[in-house]
């Protein structure tokens, strides 16, 4: 049971990280995520 709960939390965190990565790439296609290149730019 504890494996299920902890595993669920870990995979939820990983899923959120994947979503944030995808969102960042979509919004800033030429950004690596740092403040220097966090500006929006068109594809």
């Amino acid at each position, binding site marked *: 049971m504890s494996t299920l709960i902890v595993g669920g939390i870990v995979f939820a965190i990983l899923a959120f*990280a994947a979503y944030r990565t995808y969102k960042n790439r979509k919004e800033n296609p030429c950004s690596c995520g740092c403040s220097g290149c966090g500006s929006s730019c068109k594809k």
Partner: protein
Amino acid sequence: MSIVIALAGNPNSGKTTLFNDLTGSSQYVGNWPGVTVEKKEGRLKGNKEVVVQDLPGIYSLSPYTLEEVVSRNYLINERPDAIINIVDASNLERNLYLTTQLMELGLPVVVALNMMDVVEKSGDTINAAKLSALLGCPVIEVSAVKGRGVKELVQAAIEAAQSKTACEPRHLFEGKVEESIDQIEAILRDNTPLSNLRWHAVKFFERDQSVAENVPLPNEAAARIESLITACEDALDDDSESIVTNERYTYITKHIKGILNKKSSSNITTSDKIDSIVTNRVLALPIFAAVMFVVYYLSISSIGGMMTDWVNDALFGEFVPGYAEAALESLGTAEWLNALILDGIIGGVGAVLGFLPQMLVLFLCLAILEDSGYMARIAFIMDRIFRKFGLSGKSFIPILIGTGCGVPGIMASRTIESENDRRMTVITTTFIPCGAKLPIIALIAGAIFDEAVWVGPVSYFIGVAAIILSGVMLKKTRFFAGDPAPFVMELPAYHMPRLKGVLLSTYERGSAFVKKAGTIILLACALIWFLSSFNGSFEMVDAEESLLASIGNLVAPLFAPLGWGNWKAAVATFTGLVAKENVVGTFGILYGMEEVAEDGVEIWSTLRADYTPLAAFSFLVFNLLCAPCFAAIGAIRREMVTAKWTFIAIAYQTSLAYVAALIIYQLGLAFTGGGFTPWAVIAAILLAFIIYMLLKAPYDPSNLKGRQAKELCQH
């Protein structure tokens, strides 16, 4: 209905600082011209109906470079509801040149006299009311850095936008010129419905082709305009563009006398005095080298090193894994889940985050250098060296920006007019170590070289050397041949770094690094852990029998001549393509950082056992120079436009990295008595080829014949 306000002004006049102030954004602000190369949009704080557009800096509405085209096209085609013209009040005359052009666009304009704090400090005064009367638009005194006058400025801009009353362009030109422009205006009025007739008339007078192409005129009208221009040119004995430029400056000089009162007649400022030493022909380079040595010494070896040791040894070495393991044991979770959390996530992400203190110190030092005005001098100093090799110092601005991150560095290459120089700059920009490469430098310095002080500065100078050597070699090929573009750069005045600005810049870069560690690096670490823990049948196995080892062993022989042909180093290099920090994260997982910490053994000692100092240095050089992360490759693709040039860039970077690492390792091995292999012969031949390329005569297009020469001329 929303209101659109555009921020327009000269480069480095404070547009982005004002933009951040107005919108609450945190766009990167650099203390040198050419930082903003794309327009950026934000909404006004407290009034989301107002859209603010930050435009790249322009000196005039006659664009020469790509980012200047962005600004002009926006102002002409998109026609914002109002323009805030940010004027650097400490350089009033030069900045008003653009103002005289903006007034002709037929849009409401509000002039923001920025940097008034600098003007007041120098004892000079500007009569804003008189300037407003002269220009025929509101003039507001502001200090974007201190937030002074910003509310009044916004209010004036909103009122101007709502009134929809365009500024009445002042007739700046004298006699014959004004007469010709009036007549061109009349011809245009008869033939085409244009809202900003005055501006179009002036542009037609200047023979601006890009404007003329968009305004179709009957042949007869075009011929009449041409005859008017020719008559004026004959009368004034100058070309029409120069006539207009001279007239504008004459107008400004004539009227500014009663507006700007200078306290001191002396032209020697404190900045000039500092520059006489810092940019001195003899002292400039040693000072630059000393400054960068101190920066890397502080960030990697001393302050940053001490803090990183604590974070690595205590926080991510004992505290976090210790508590996490105890918690997982008490919960009785499955072994694979414990391994994922402890070895994959804590081991991988913790290894990367361990270098955060060093990165923060580096970002702090760079922010201080930048805000003080010294960074801009480095481009000036490098121009002297670059020029000797046929390169332009203009290429160094993207490289300076690249010390933070390669992506904006690559994008900043747009400020370079020459296509050849621009492509060459895109190829070489990522040779300079970006923030993400610092953990790799710090890892090698700490794990292999006992935190030797020379590793950091040497890594930086290897980047600079790779840029110079590449520039010299590439310039001798027909793809990049040509005279260096002239480099004129306005050096910002020195000032004491502002604590708030420096800390904010450091915080933003640091927090972005943490966010990156929590997203893409976390994902990469989980994937690497999975691949290094399971085999093809999805059974948990030792790393040496894992899927990752199988993949790594396929590519590892490629790197054997460089001295690090084991699969772990090969895999780390490839994961660096996702984000350079992943090189460290991968080592953290594969060398069992978490297990090492449990044993109480010094962190990274297992890594040291696998690499000789020479092999580790070769690994460092390869990873500093090889293809950058995917985000930067994407930026290269965007700037190069074609897949062919993107491929050339990546192939060149990777080849140079391979050759440099091969020479270092093989010749290093031969000279230190480590052995002489056939690879050493190849390394010697490659070194000889590089020397030949450096000494070779410059490429001469006149030697070409026929089609090849024609193609080059067209290019």
